[in-house]
């Protein structure tokens, strides 16, 4: 069995990252503006933000961009010729926390199901994911409550876990191993299983550090049976109908498609993020809108997170990263929603 | 009030008495004159008719000198006043020309100082100031104030309305004199033609004297050496054209003021005029 655990010193990590940045487009969390951490392409390790809180915006942008050209068309020379944008070159996504990786796994069936989406899947295939275990939960993290594991990031190619002054590296996939082989000098094989121990120890430490872990048990079942709840009315009356929660959520994937052409002779078709919280989201031709008021929209989003995704793909719709909690201007907190639903479920 | 003093060539030579009377009256009124060191010709001679650039450069050099002293400049002679004031006006209106002229003179003039005429200087302290200094009011004098052309033309630098100026009358009334309203205040005095082409100049001069006599004036006040030159020296020749001619002494405004302020006729240089001025002294007493 090939050895899959390695050790990487802090300097080793830095040199490895600068080598990586030369060979691949290296994308990692960067503090673009005070208090705004986003995934951007970096030239080397010095720009990268390593501290543990989840980034302001999820890495979703690199798989489902906020605006993406689907194809361009031109009528020059008679008929219509189409042209698709070039597929992405292979690149490395560094610094994803386990919840972000889990989110990607949640998205895969959406775009990989009966109607495979070439754009998303092309990007997924071209990306080497290097996950970073959490050392300290963010103020609003609650991934354990939704079955998340802050340490192990199943789905990543490589998992780094800080242990003492160096890092335990676990190759989770063959691709991960290839990367290790490509940069032999940096990785020392970890015979004594120090990595494994570090991970358990870290898991143990983290377990008690979550400030607010809602109890999800029984909530989905309750929701299965109760669609009409006056509770949603109260939540909806607070909601502004903006798109923050959906655009900062790593698992939200709704998009709108539109065409752009200036002179009718050439143009492009593109898709861009859309939010179920917008009032026009479900407006149909002829003006009918199955979700006319904010109540339906708020209910729909939470049901999608806590129920529909589970029903459809057998995977949790919420990975507990807490980004929507951090940014909601009127403090609609999914942890509290779960708590309230639990309470409603218990005494009917 | 401290002013840079630009006498000009006439006040050094043919119009010395104007120079003395200006200094005398000025000092009495509390004005400190600081003659501009190394001042040169203001361009009023043939200069400004031959080349505009030459005229501007000549004036600009003097203005630059005055500016170095940091004082506004007063030029009693109407021609000098007009040259300096007009040059400052034209340079301000045309930046590229300004640079070129500064290049020529080698002394940069930045336009921070202003050019004042003798009338403006006298009136700057107000007629009350003049009245307060008058010891011997010019009673009995009927003065025809003669402006000539340079003080009131062109419009950009005129000291008062070009057709019906009243500033000198205001000063003379303050000095106790009676002023007459007459028609040829701003008519041309023949200027340099009096030298080069007398047949043209003399009739012009006679017309001015005729109008002054018709208005009942018994003397003429002016503020320009050239006008004084023509009206005073050429008066003898102009008599021929005038039916009922009476001698009309021609004095500088500042000489009349000097008299009113009790200065002697020697200090004011009254005897230097062709048309004798003793009649004035008798009238004023």
């Amino acid at each position, binding site marked *: 069995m090939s050895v899959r655990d390695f050790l990487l010193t802090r300097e080793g990590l830095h040199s490895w990252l600068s080598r990586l940045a030369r060979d691949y487009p290296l994308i990692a969390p960067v503090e*673009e*503006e*005070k*208090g*705004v951490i*986003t995934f951007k392409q970096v030239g080397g390790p010095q720009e990268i933000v390593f501290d543990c809180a989840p980034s*302001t*915006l999820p890495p979703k942008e690199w798989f489902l961009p*906020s*605006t993406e050209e689907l194809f361009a068309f031109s009528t020059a020379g008679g008929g219509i010729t189409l042209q698709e944008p070039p597929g992405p070159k292979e690149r490395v996504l560094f610094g994803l926390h386990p919840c972000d990786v889990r989110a990607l796994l949640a998205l895969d069936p959406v775009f990989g199901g009966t109607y495979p989406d070439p754009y998303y899947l092309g990007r997924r295939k071209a990306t080497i994911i290097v996950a970073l275990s959490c050392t300290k939960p963010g*103020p*609003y993290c609650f991934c354990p409550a939704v079955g998340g594991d802050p340490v192990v990031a199943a789905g990543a190619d490589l998992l780094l876990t800080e242990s003492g002054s160096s890092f335990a590296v676990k190759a989770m996939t063959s691709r991960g191993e290839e990367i290790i082989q490509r940069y032999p000098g940096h990785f020392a094989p970890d015979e004594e299983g120090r990595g494994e121990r570090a991970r358990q120890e870290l898991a143990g430490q983290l377990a008690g550090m979550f*400030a*607010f872990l809602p109890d999800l048990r029984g909530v989905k079942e309750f929701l299965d049976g109760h669609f009409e709840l006056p509770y949603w009315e*109260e939540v909806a*009356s*607070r909601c*502004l*109908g*903006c*798109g*923050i929660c*959906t*655009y*900062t959520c790593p698992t939200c994937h709704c998009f*709108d498609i*539109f065409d*752009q052409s200036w002179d009718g002779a050439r143009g492009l078709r*593109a898709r*861009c*993020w859309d*939010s179920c919280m*917008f*009032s*026009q989201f479900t407006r149909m031709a002829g003006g009918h809108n199955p979700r006319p008021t904010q109540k339906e929209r708020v209910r729909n989003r939470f049901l999608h997170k806590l129920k529909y995704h589970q029903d459809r793909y057998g995977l949790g719709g919420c990975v507990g990263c807490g980004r929507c*909690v951090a*940014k909601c*201007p*009127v*403090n*609609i*907190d999914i*942890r*509290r929603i779960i708590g309230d639903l639990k309470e409603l479920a218990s005494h009917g | 009030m401290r002013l840079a003093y630009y006498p000009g060539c006439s006040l050094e030579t043919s119009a010395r008495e104007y120079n003395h009377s200006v200094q005398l009256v000025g000092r009495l009124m509390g004005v400190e004159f600081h003659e501009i060191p190394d001042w040169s010709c203001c361009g009023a001679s043939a200069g400004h008719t031959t080349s505009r650039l030459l005229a501007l450069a000549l004036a600009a050099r003097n203005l630059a000198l005055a500016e170095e002293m940091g004082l506004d400049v007063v030029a009693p002679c109407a021609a000098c006043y007009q040259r300096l004031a007009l040059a400052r006006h034209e340079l301000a209106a045309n930046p590229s020309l300004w640079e070129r002229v500064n290049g020529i003179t080698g002394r940069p003039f930045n336009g921070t100082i202003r050019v004042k005429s003798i009338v403006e200087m006298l009136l700057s302290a107000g007629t009350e100031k003049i009245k307060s200094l008058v010891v011997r009011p010019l009673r009995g004098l009927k003065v025809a104030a003669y402006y000539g052309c340079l003080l009131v033309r062109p419009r950009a630098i005129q000291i008062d309305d070009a057709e019906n100026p009243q500033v000198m009358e205001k000063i003379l009334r303050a000095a106790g004199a009676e002023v007459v309203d007459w028609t040829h205040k701003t008519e041309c005095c023949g200027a340099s033609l009096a030298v080069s082409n007398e047949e043209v100049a003399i009739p012009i001069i006679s017309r001015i004297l005729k109008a002054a006599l018709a208005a009942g004036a018994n003397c003429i006040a002016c503020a320009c050496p050239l006008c004084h030159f023509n009206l005073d020296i050429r008066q003898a020749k102009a008599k021929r054209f005038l039916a009922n001619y009476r001698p009309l002494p021609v004095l500088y405004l500042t000489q009349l003021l000097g008299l009113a302020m009790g200065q002697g006729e020697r200090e004011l240089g009254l005897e230097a005029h062709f048309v004798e001025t003793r009649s004035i002294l008798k009238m004023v007493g």
Partner: protein
Amino acid sequence: MRETARQLLREREVGLVIGYAAGSEAYWVTPAFIKEEAQADRLVWNPFCVNSLAKYLINYHHEPYKVAVVVKGCDSRALVRLLQDNQVQREKVVVIGIPCLGVVDAKAAALKIAPGTRILGASVTDGEFLLQTESGTLSLPRGEALCAKCRYCENPTPVLADTLLAEEVAAEPAANIYAEVREVESWPREKRSAFWDGHFQRCLRCYACRNICPACTCRECVFDQTDPCWVAKAHNLSENTAFHLIRAMHVAGRCVDCGECERACPVNIPLRLLNQKVIKDIKELFGVSTPGSRLDEMPALGMFATEDPDEFN
């Protein structure tokens, strides 16, 4: 506050009281919609009550019953604007005014307060905010924690209120109220351009700034319309800049500088800096007060004066 709410609900004078309730974190509050007297205890008032609640009234425009709403000074300006825009009828609103000593900027507080702590009480002195929590009192220095908009607050006492829950607070005349705007104005053009491009580049077009803004009350916003398509749905610098400039012009003369847009923005775009520039210019050009300060003063761009400044002839 709770007593007033209970009394209003008990006497059926209002059908709803809109106020603040404790949030899921110490430094947050969430809007509370109290319908029954019993729920009045959920209402709180502390230095974290930063939200402007006036805009919620629009949702109850057609309800038969009257609605009570809690307003601070800046919120009262927003309410005046909504009244002037006929979005809310004065007779259907009971205004509970709270003279305000300044509120805390949640983002700054979050750095100081550990997650999960619960607030028992709070008091404000002129130097700092004191928070009583289970683990002792916590002090937040006013200089750091005070919300930016409160530093130049023009109306600490609501301009419009049916009842005032505390005695009036005088407004100190703020010196150099638009210092940051003048700072940006003083930059060379390239720096200003790069500054704003950098910010607008990050805009997600989540429209939180629009949906929270009391001046943005259109039934269907131009940015949602496709025919005519004023601004394309694509998220790029050009369309984002177009969105922000058009919105700035739409709220010009109407924005009450309540700072909610800047607070709501998930990517920290300094939107107040943009809208304040317009407010400053309108004040300097047309000599009007901050919109919403007086019920009788209508938006500046809806009027004109023949002797307005002119630089176009």
